[in-house]
Structures are given as structure tokens and as C-alpha cells.
């Protein structure tokens, strides 16, 4: 993945926002994961239409954080979720 990658939530994953965090359940893999509020926001925004760079720009603005740091954090976060089968990259439209 890179900043131009467009991540999408794995359709098999069932998720629910709870108390600002998110609970993700992948029933096929038997995996359950809790995302903190920033992760939950990224998960919400990962709709297969926005690039990781665009996601980072939104998050940096919402949290008033330096864009370069946010880009690196979100890229790493998305790569981690991809390794776990929770996110998948989609081709650029």
C-alpha cells in the first residue's frame, strides 16, 4: 500500500461503533478487533473511494495534527488491517 492506495472495508467484516471506538468482527477468520477513536474514524472513511492520502488529509484536519505524521500513521494502520484481512486495496477509479 502507499498514499495513492484506495482501501475498502472487507465486506465480510461486521463492525459497530461503540463509545467512539469500533468493534470489528471477521466471522470467517474468527478475528475480533477493537479500534480506538482515530482508527474507528479511518475505518468509517475507508469506503473504497478515498485514497489513503485523502484519508490522512481529512484526519489531519479533524485532529489538527501534522499531515506528514498522520500520513505515516494511517498508512501503517491500513497496512496492518490489510495484513489481517480487514481492509483490502481497490483499484483506482
Amino acid at each position, binding site marked *: 500500500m502507499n498514499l495513492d492506495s484506495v482501501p475498502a472495508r472487507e465486506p465480510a467484516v461486521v463492525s459497530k461503533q*461503540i*463509545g467512539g*471506538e*469500533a*468493534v470489528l*468482527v471477521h466471522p470467517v477468520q*474468527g478475528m*475480533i478487533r477493537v479500534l480506538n477513536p482515530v482508527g474507528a474514524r479511518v475505518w468509517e472513511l475507508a469506503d473504497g473511494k478515498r485514497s489513503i492520502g485523502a484519508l490522512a488529509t481529512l484526519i489531519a484536519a479533524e485532529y489538527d495534527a501534522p499531515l506528514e505524521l498522520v500520513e505515516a500513521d494511517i498508512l501503517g494502520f491500513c497496512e496492518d488491517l490489510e495484513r489481517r484481512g480487514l481492509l483490502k486495496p481497490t483499484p483506482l477509479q
Partner: protein
Amino acid sequence: MLILSVAGLRIALSVDSPALIDPLRGRYAAFLADAPEVPALRLDVTAGARGEARDPAPSPDPAIRFLALDAKGERYAIEGTAARGIMDLPRDEATVSLDPRVAPAQLEYLLRALYAYLALREGGLLVHAAGVCYDSRAWLFIGPSGSGKTTVSSLSEGARVLSDDLVAVRPLAGDWRAYSTPFWNLESVTPARPGEAAPLTAIYRLVQAREVSVEPLALAAATAELVASCPIVNADPLQLPHLIETCRRLAASVPVARLFFRKDPGFWAAIGRPAEDAS
């Protein structure tokens, strides 16, 4: 016909094999009811599906899969190593054909699974947990196999144990109650009376450690731990939204924490069981 009653949920069990019915009557004797109330589910069992004559004896693995036949999660095909059938929740009925060579094990697993679906349908849960009662209060201890559920049960001197493997919980009048089940791992502890229930005081996720401590869980983490502790239905994508919401409601009403414990009864002091409840 046998009427099995767990957590107030009745399954009317009809078995066509005399060779199977007597062992079942013995196995679930303490949970059999005779009042002719409307059951939550009627289960018709045919013990005769031997498969092809050339087939070897089926695997002893009793696992049964529930394959959704619709998009709502209401009708399922039941498939196991030696089981075939249908579960139709809107019609409150299930039919299954079992290979008689492994029927008792398959039927035990099937009943556990059916109660997982029924409990969730009724707004409750069948939880992979040890349930421990002191006087009129219940505590649940959750965690995967090997985490210490049976150990905690046996370390709870004077307690009545609802089960050391699967406990039913249901909401009742703004409260959550924990119920005994016939689904046990070991018989090494004092079982609660069949049908016994008590208000649920707290739920602890067991973590073996050198020192005892308690770490409260935030709502999302608590919900996730509960979802992980509800077998069968937590692997069913169609039930997951309802399951997650039910677990969230339970976690919002009953404290959920990690319990770091070692193999002695000292954890009860950390949990804070009131002195008047102590035996």
C-alpha cells in the same frame, strides 16, 4: 417426547430411536420439564442416516455447521460429519437426521448450538463461561479453553456453579440473569440446581498471572470480549449485528473487567465479593 428446559427456553425433543431416548433422558434428567408449555423450538431427531454402506464410521468430531438458506438468518441447513437437517427459526422447528454411531455426541453439540441461536433470538446469550453463584448473586468468568474457567469454578469454595463451560444469560426487568445449563466440562465442582438463576453481578475475562489484579474494560473492548465468548453465533455473519448489539447492551449494564489471577482463591478478594456473601 422430552421437554428440555434451559434458561426458561424449552426444546421439545422428539426422537424416533428407543436406543437413543433413554441415554438422553439420563443425560439431561435434571433439565427435563413436564409442564406442557409452548416450547421455543420443536426438534425432531431421526437416528438412521448411516450414509453409504461403504462409509467408515464417522469422525468423532461432533462439530456441526449451520449454513444460512436465506438472507435474514432465519432458515439454516444443518450439516455435520454425521448429521443432516434444517433449522427454521420462524416456524420454531428443527429436524435432523443423525448417524446412530455418533448420535449422542452430535446431539449434544446440536443442542448447544440450538440454544445459542434461541438465546440470541430471545435477547440473551449462551456464553462460553464459568458461572459462579454465592447466595443470590452470580459472576461470570470468560476466556478461551485453558484460560482457567474450570479452575476458577473449583477454587470457589462453597459456591454453586451454574456451569464451567456454557452459561445462559438473559435480560429480565432491566436486570441480567445468569442461568445454569447442562453443558459442562467437568463434574468436579458442586453444580447449581437445574434451572437456577441469579442476577449477574460482574463478568471477568480470565488472564493467568503471578499477581492478582482487576482491569476494567471500556465498553467497546468489553463488547468484543463478550462477542468472542459466544460460540456458534459469533461465526454466523447474519447473526453478528444482533449479537454485537446484545453484547453491547450486556456490557453497558454489567461491569466487565480483565481478571489477572493465579491458582488460588485470592482472586475473590480482588473481585470484592461482599463479606456477607462469603462462606
